[in-house]
């Protein structure tokens, strides 16, 4: 029942639409973060022809950097129907009779052998010729196999994507829940730690061309330092000063604004893809998944097991849970609460930085990527039970799978809304969450 003709967000937000000409870049992006990225300068190909007064829709179709020739795109609307074919440079364009709503459909069967759309169930774009005369439509394609899919194949594919998303959400959300458990603060700047990891990994691997392992270590070290710095430079002094929890919560909001706009200032508003050569795909039954996603899932599971081991088997992990349980009692029994909180901050920042690296591989790097999924992390944490690390894992998996699975039935640009509605329903029915304890909810 996925709505036909509804454009859906591709795996990479960059794969969306850009309008150009007359200096008017109209972003028709339908991705949830599209509205936020409205001022993002997107790479704009030069105009497709000499049309300055007519209305055209066009674009470039490539596989990687290779332009594809002879690919057909059907443009329809209002009784108008015409096929555009790509030339040797991969460009196609269709002149339109006037303003209005059109649909552009990539004719998948005209793609060369071994090339498939990145997102096979998203080959139709809605084109709205309103304020701009020319609209550019992108169909991200890559090497792959075109196959007819049944509803169960789609469901299964979404399940795997959702599992991947849920696992990396869990990496980030455990940080939120540990910080909340030990300090009582809902950290609204947590998304920025995720962006931090993604941006530095992008800079090290793609911009500076470092070795992946080196870049990984450097990024995680910087993330850890970022977490330590936030605690030592900001939150510990606030704790010492006895600043109230709500004030600290607003401080995290301010910090989130500052850091986010610093990212925008230095990184720019575009989407960058991390290129570490893992974009080849693996087919597991009906599911086609990139090698990077597969590795990402493995890394997430390994890290989550490590965290579980840390929390249940090590002295300092047990101390963390004790502080989380009752900070005063823990302090009275000789646990150095400040030290535990410092370790929690460093650990949370490292895990979240790692989640950022993986999320950057999965969806590309943008300046507000962390903030865009911050509420999903909160939803996951609340769903699992605030303050419970294992609850965060369960909640993240549920939220991750739910957001991806919901796109089978509802428009993909509403998938985050689904997660947030679930959050509200959970608070209505079971405010302490799946694994939370009742006394926390106040």
């Amino acid at each position: 029942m996925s709505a036909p003709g509804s454009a859906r967000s591709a795996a990479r937000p960059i794969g969306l639409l850009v309008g150009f000409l007359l200096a008017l870049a109209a972003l028709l992006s339908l991705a949830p973060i599209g509205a936020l990225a409205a001022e993002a300068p997107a790479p704009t190909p030069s105009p497709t022809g000499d049309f300055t007064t007519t209305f055209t829709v066009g674009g470039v179709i490539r596989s990687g950097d290779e332009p594809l020739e002879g690919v057909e795109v059907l443009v329809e609307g209002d009784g108008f129907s015409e096929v555009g074919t790509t030339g040797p440079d991969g460009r196609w364009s269709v002149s339109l009779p006037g303003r209005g709503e059109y649909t552009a459909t990539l004719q998948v069967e005209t793609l060369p052998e071994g090339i498939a759309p990145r997102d096979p169930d998203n080959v139709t774009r809605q084109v709205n010729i309103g304020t701009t005369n020319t609209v550019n439509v992108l169909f991200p394609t890559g090497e792959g196999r075109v196959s007819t899919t049944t509803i169960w194949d789609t469901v299964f594919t979404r399940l795997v994507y959702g599992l991947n998303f849920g696992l990396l959400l869990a990496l980030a959300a455990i940080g939120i829940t540990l910080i909340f458990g030990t300090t009582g603060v809902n950290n609204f700047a947590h998304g920025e730690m995720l962006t931090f990891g993604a941006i530095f990994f992008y800079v090290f691997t793609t911009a500076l061309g470092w070795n992946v392992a080196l870049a990984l270590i450097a990024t995680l070290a910087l993330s850890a330092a970022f977490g330590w710095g936030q605690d030592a430079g900001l939150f510990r002094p606030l704790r010492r000063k006895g600043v109230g929890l709500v004030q600290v919560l607003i401080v995290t909001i301010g910090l989130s604004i500052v850091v986010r706009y610093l990212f925008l200032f230095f990184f720019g508003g575009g989407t960058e893809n991390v290129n570490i050569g893992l974009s080849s795909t693996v087919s597991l039954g009906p599911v086609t998944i990139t090698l990077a996603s597969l590795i990402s899932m493995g890394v997430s599971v390994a890290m989550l097991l490590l965290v579980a081991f840390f929390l249940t088997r090590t002295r300092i992990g047990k101390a963390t849970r004790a502080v989380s349980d009752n900070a005063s009692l823990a302090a009275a029994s000789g646990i150095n609460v400040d030290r535990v909180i410092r370790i929690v901050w460093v650990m949370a920042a490292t895990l979240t930085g790692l989640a950022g690296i993986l999320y950057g591989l999965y969806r590309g790097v943008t300046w507000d990527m962390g903030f865009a999924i911050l509420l999903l992390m909160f939803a996951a944490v609340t769903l699992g039970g605030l303050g419970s690390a294992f609850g965060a894992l369960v909640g993240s998996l549920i939220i991750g799978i739910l957001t991806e699975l919901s796109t089978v039935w509802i428009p993909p640009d509403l998938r985050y809304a689904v997660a947030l509605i679930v959050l509200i329903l959970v608070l209505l029915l079971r405010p302490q969450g799946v694994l939370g304890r009742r006394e926390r909810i106040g």
Partner: protein
Amino acid sequence: MDWGSIIGNAAGELISPTTAAYALAAIGLSVHFGYAGLLNFGQAGFMAVGAYAFAITTLELGWPVWLAILAAIVASVVFAFVLGVPTLRLRADYLAIVTIAAAEIVRFVVSTVNLTAITGGSQGLSGFARGFDALNPFGDARFGFGPWTYSGEQWWVRVFGWGLVLLATVIVFLLMRSPWGRVVKGIREDEDAVRSLGKNVYSYKMQALVLGGVFGSLAGVVFILPRAVQPGNYGTALTFFIWTALLLGGAATVFGPIVGAMIFWAVLSLTNGVIVGLRDAGVLPFISTTQAGQIRFILVGLALMLLVVFRPQGIFGNKKELSFNV
């Protein structure tokens, strides 16, 4: 640097309709947070609900201005109930998460492709202000003095917006001196104490949430009168800016929200003018014009952090009247 135009622009911001909308939204937030102690992080959601209710009833149903405003109010009352029912019994930070989530849900829903016919999708709506402009009593001529010279239509938007701000201020002032206001402030101080006096805390909180939400929705209407409705405007950033404006002036004060909104916009305009001016003068050659616009958001964030740590009561506030101890 052209100081005349920089200061002129900043002075213009003092009474601009956007400032009026921020002031009105901040008054609503002041009822929520300052007086009742409710952590509403979804004021942008209330504004979006008001703005879309006004625009859609005007464009789709052809309702007159007063009826469309009524629709905006009703929509925000419904929205407040949807938010309040699940969360007002829980701890304050749950309300924070739910309100921010609900505001984002509103933004996702109004920008979804499938509702483009009604909400205009990511492009938004425009052309709904004709009925409002037709009521303009000032004619077409430009008048005013100094930096405040506007056309009659522009004056009409300003007078309407600030008229609403004044009305809201008077309502809040009178309400907070009434027995109702004392109960609400009591809830902020100690919920259990008020409950032990036999008051229905839940109901009072809900009334405060509805009242502040209605102001937020009217702010949404004022906000869109000089511009189009665009879903991108109603992100969480809007909520946080209104919070900054409110905390700047002082949360539980009568004039705090208004002065806070004025200072917020005047300072934003000043810093932007100065940074762009310095750039054009070649002092900051490494900054592009877009980046110059981003610096002020960094400053907003910094201001918010410093304010809440060092002067949480704002410019006018009284430190005793603070609801930070949840």
